[in-house]
């Protein structure tokens, strides 16, 4: 039944561009989808390994910049007389590069920063993202700095002379984001229901005990970071080739916070949590905009909701719903044994 529900959901999501003829709403859905992918990737770290990484937007931005730069081509002087230039690459290849480079950065950051935990880890990750943002802002030769990378090409797939799919228009991008999202979801689901995911859960729940049964703590934290960073990078690449302009503001800390809010509200450490949270906080800004509220209202709402969720739904929406559902079915099932016992008493 659960599988049937998943398929029904997928069919529904796939049908959206067929009956929805409001392009603005479709745009909102695409952006929400990109953020949901980023939130799912953060959930692997925050929810499953229990490490609060507040630098996650760095991987998103690295993916966006790396993919854009590869597709646009660039030339930089690494030393005054040593120039490195890269010719424009096909967009699908660039997106792959963006994903891999983000994953590689995840590996490096994981290796370095898991020496420290708790508050220290959080602060290292924040610092990492800020440094990357300042590099994007100041390394003008590579990134154009605040002038932003413009005219980023959109994705085209196909066999020359036979057929070509172009991802310029919104419905095509919607399906692209949906496909990448489904792939990421499946990869995460397989991981968390495997030896690797169990190792991550074990070290979240009880690190000394996990080590005592042979879990190599660093190895699994780094694995989680690589996968998580790679997926965030893929989301960034999707963003770059959809919006087709990338500036250093993609690294703003507020976007990490948005992802954290999505994960925490939806339910960290659950597969559906980031999707539910991502849908709520992906659509909320547009709802507020439709109500003609100034943009600050959106952030104030985020801030207040974050506090309220921590107080009243500390586990998030998905676990709360699940408990409520189980509680209901337990109540529904309860009369049977009660009856049996009263009969036995007679």
């Amino acid at each position: 039944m659960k599988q049937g529900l998943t398929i029904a959901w997928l069919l529904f999501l796939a049908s959206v561009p067929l009956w929805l003829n409001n392009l603005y709403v479709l745009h909102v859905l695409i952006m929400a989808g990109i953020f949901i992918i980023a939130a799912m990737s953060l959930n692997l770290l925050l929810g499953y390994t229990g490490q609060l990484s507040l630098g996650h937007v760095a991987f998103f931005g690295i993916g966006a910049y790396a993919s854009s730069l590869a597709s646009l081509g660039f030339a930089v002087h690494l030393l005054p007389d040593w120039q490195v230039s890269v010719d424009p690459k096909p967009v699908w290849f660039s997106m792959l590069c963006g994903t891999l480079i983000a994953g590689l950065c995840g590996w490096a950051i994981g290796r370095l920063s898991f020496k420290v935990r708790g508050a220290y880890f959080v602060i290292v990750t924040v610092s990492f993202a800020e440094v990357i943002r300042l590099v994007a802002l100041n390394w003008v030769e590579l990134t154009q700095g605040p002038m932003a990378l413009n005219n980023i090409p959109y994705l085209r797939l196909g066999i020359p002379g036979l057929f070509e799919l172009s991802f310029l228009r919104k419905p095509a991008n919607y399906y692209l984001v949906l496909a990448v999202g489904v792939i990421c979801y499946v990869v995460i689901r397989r991981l968390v229901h495997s030896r690797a995911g169990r190792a991550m859960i074990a070290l979240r729940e009880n690190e000394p005990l996990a080590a005592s049964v042979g879990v190599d703590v660093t190895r699994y934290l780094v694995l989680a970071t690589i996968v998580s960073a790679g997926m965030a990078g893929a989301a960034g690449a999707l963003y770059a080739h959809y919006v087709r302009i990338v500036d250093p503001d993609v690294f703003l800390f507020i976007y990490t916070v948005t992802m954290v809010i999505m994960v925490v509200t939806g339910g960290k450490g659950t597969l559906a949590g980031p999707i539910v949270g991502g849908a709520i906080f992906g659509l909320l800004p547009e709802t507020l905009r439709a109500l003609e509220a100034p943009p600050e209202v959106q952030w104030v709402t985020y801030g207040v909701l974050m506090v309220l969720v921590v107080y009243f739904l500390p586990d998030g929406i998905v676990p709360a719903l699940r408990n409520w559902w189980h509680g209901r079915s337990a109540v529904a099932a309860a009369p049977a044994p009660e009856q049996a016992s009263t009969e036995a008493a007679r």
Partner: protein
Amino acid sequence: MRGKIPNMDQLLQHILNALILGGTYALLGIGLTLIFGIMRVVNFAHGELYAFGAYMMYLWVMVLGANFYLALPLAVLLGVMLGAAMELVLLRRLRGADIDTTMLVMIGAWITLQNVEQMTWSGVAKSINTPFPSSPLVLGSVSLSWNRLFVFVVALALIGATYAVINRTKLGKAMRATFQDRDTAALMGVDINWIHTATFALGSGLAAAAGALLGPVFVVVPTMGDLASLKAFAIVILGGLGSIPGATIGGFILAFMEELGAGYVSSGYRDAMGFLLIIVILLVKPTGLFAQKERIG
């Protein structure tokens, strides 16, 4: 650059600027480290108290036309009150919660405060008039604005006052006892609730003071708290989480690194210095430069 050895003059000027800036950085750092050391709360809203101090200064001086010297203590007092209110409303019920939970709440508070500021004052940068002469004080080959000198003197006075509170008063003694061992302190009759409120209020007051002092030097914008928070983290990590002397020295070290980095490397990377410092320190000596003993994790 005039003078016989222009590079020397330039260096002297940078050192002077760093000293002046270091005082306010130390204020920010001490506030944050107190809150972490005693309450185990990673206070992401710290920079917002800094911004709050600056805006209160703007409110009193520019909107209500109050005297500059009167506005300063008023702004700090309001910061203390806001800090106390935040502790009572937001943190009191989370006592005993893990560090990530309180961190999330403080992030929520930070976003809320910043955007309320934005709604109240708009995003346009505000400047605050000062009673100081606009011509700088010239000392040989270096110069210094009167306003900055005032900032430095007041910051040093506040640092001194904080040390006196911590080391000389009954409250300070109770705070130190709580820092050492909360459970024992509670058994000895220390009112932990009161200590927490007082600590958060004191830390917030110091951040507000830093903002009230620097607001007139720079301009006041709603996002000014972001960098202040992150710099305060850099300072505190540099000195070791929970160490007050560490935060004091850390404030000056960060100011020196920024001044010299901006002067000799690239001004665009001025603000990156703190973060590079954090990363290097944590990877080389995670306990910070001055902490005696701090458990990681």
